[in-house]
């Protein structure tokens, strides 16, 4: 069966810490459809990062299967995983995770460069993305000249640059004030809807859950659907 978006089937991850075996993820199953924006909340140490790393092809699961756009990535070698990350996954990481010596436009184009040449069409697409995110005037600026909110908007544009099927956001509002946090998350939500991406946001910030279609709660490596989003 061909599924689009992200699907995890009974994924577990174990770490060996000394003589103990730590269960970071315990039989996690989730399915995120294109156009769906899902949040994963939970206390630190609950396994959110491990979950996101496995969904983003950064980490291999110990058990279970991970499908990205219908492709099972759980057993691919490292070399192909970097290719999957490049083509199928858009990462939005915490603020300041931009390359310091590239300007805003180049932040996007470097993604294209990783897979080969930059075409004029790529440039046009990058400019379009940046304009959509309100960064048209900031294209030649360097990260050090941008505010935290602007940096995060650049990160959103970068995640969309390769037109991936899946968007993964890792605490995208960690260093932002409430106003900017709302702005950034609403932009992600809008991009997910208009561009039909399957999106997962890991956060501990419960103010922002109203933008999401579903909220999952992670506790001790187990993922469960939370009650209707709590109002901030």
């Amino acid at each position, binding site marked *: 069966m061909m599924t689009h978006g992200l699907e995890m089937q009974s994924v577990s991850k174990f770490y060996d810490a000394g003589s103990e075996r730590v269960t970071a993820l315990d039989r996690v199953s989730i399915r995120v459809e294109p156009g769906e924006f899902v949040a994963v909340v939970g206390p*630190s140490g609950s396994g959110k*990062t491990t979950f*996101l*790393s496995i969904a*983003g092809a*950064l*980490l291999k699961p110990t058990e279970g299967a991970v499908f990205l756009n219908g492709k099972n990535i759980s057993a691919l070698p490292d*070399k192909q995983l*970097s*290719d*999957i*990350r*490049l*083509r199928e*996954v858009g*990462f939005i*990481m*915490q*603020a*300041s*995770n*931009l*390359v*310091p*010596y*590239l300007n805003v436009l*180049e932040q996007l184009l*470097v*993604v294209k*460069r*990783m*897979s080969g040449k930059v075409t004029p069409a790529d440039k046009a697409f990058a400019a379009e993305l940046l304009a959509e995110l309100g960064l048209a005037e900031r294209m030649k600026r*360097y990260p050090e000249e941008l505010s935290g909110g602007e940096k995060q908007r650049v990160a959103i544009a*970068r*995640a969309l640059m*390769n037109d991936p099927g899946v968007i993964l956001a*890792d*605490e995208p509002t*960690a*260093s932002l004030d409430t106003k900017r946090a709302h702005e950034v998350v609403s932009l992600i939500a809008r991009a997910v809807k208009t561009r039909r991406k399957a999106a997962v946001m890991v956060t*501990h910030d419960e103010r922002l859950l109203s933008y999401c279609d579903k909220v999952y709660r992670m506790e001790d490596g187990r993922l469960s659907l939370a009650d209707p989003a709590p109002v901030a």
Partner: protein
Amino acid sequence: MFLALKEIRHSKTRFVMIGIILVLISWLVFILSGLGNGLAALAASTFKNMDADYVVFEKGSKASMGKSLLSGELTARLTEIPGVEAASPMGIIFGSAVRESGDPEEFKLDIALVGIEPGSFLEPDVAEGAGLDAGSPTHVLANESLKDEGFRIGDTFVLDGTTEELTIAGFVRDQTYNHIASVFIPIETWRKLAFAAPGSDKGLKDPVNAIMLQGKDIDPNAINERLPGTETVTRGQAVQGISGYKEETGTIFMMLGFLFVISAFIVGVFFYVLTMQKSNQFGIMKAIGAKNGFLGKAVISQVFVLSLASILVGILLTYGTAAVLPKGMPFRLETSWVIAYSLILLAISLASALISVRTVVKIDPLKALGRVE
């Protein structure tokens, strides 16, 4: 290349500082090699520029002109040995040239008096004036450096302690022996000057210091057997036998060797630290899909651009330095050596950059998902 250049442009100060260190290292390498070349030329250019393949010395002289004394009669017998195409005797003594007239203190000049047969293959090309002539036994050929001391063609001088008046017939280029100017003189006249003291010729007929041979297929052992009491070495070995030559060039090459080893470490550590500082960035780029090859190329091309530019600046500085060095300083740059040392330096930089590439490969993209809360 794209990332490499972007980063250099963005953090100019940092890269200029590393560049300066590379420039200084390459500058030092080139200066040392120029000095080494210059010294080696000063010590042995008369020997090095000679059109001879082998040198016959007295047995036990350890290829040193000063320790060797042979009879000139051997020359004829040497030409009969298979492989020997030509043979010609040679002698060297040191002395002071004293210019006639004026204050003798002022006009004393150390010279190496080289006795050769006029017209033989040992006579160097004349740069100015006339060559040696068997018919004019007191006419000599002097190294050009004597011009700087005020000597002109036709000037006369005597060797300190003798009465023979010698006339400069012409000048030759790049002829020094043991760091002092060579003066070529017909061997008959040389003998008169060298063995003026009774008994100093040890009773040999037509004494000379050594006999130079031409011939690519000479078998030194065959000569040693045919002519007992002789010792035949290649010209290169004879150069090594010049007193002080080995020690001098050895010192310079030792310094150069150490410099290369040290520069490998300095450059390697710099690039390593630079890469470690950026490990977070590399982690991010890996997380968004950059392959090791992409990042490795960025590191290597950055090192290449930086090293190449620095070495070129180093070469320019070296030629600039050579232009302002005092004339008496023995400094000689040879393009082939400059190119060779540039390539060695470039290779060292790139090799040490490979260590940095290894750390890039090891960086875990998971680093990008670190928490800052």
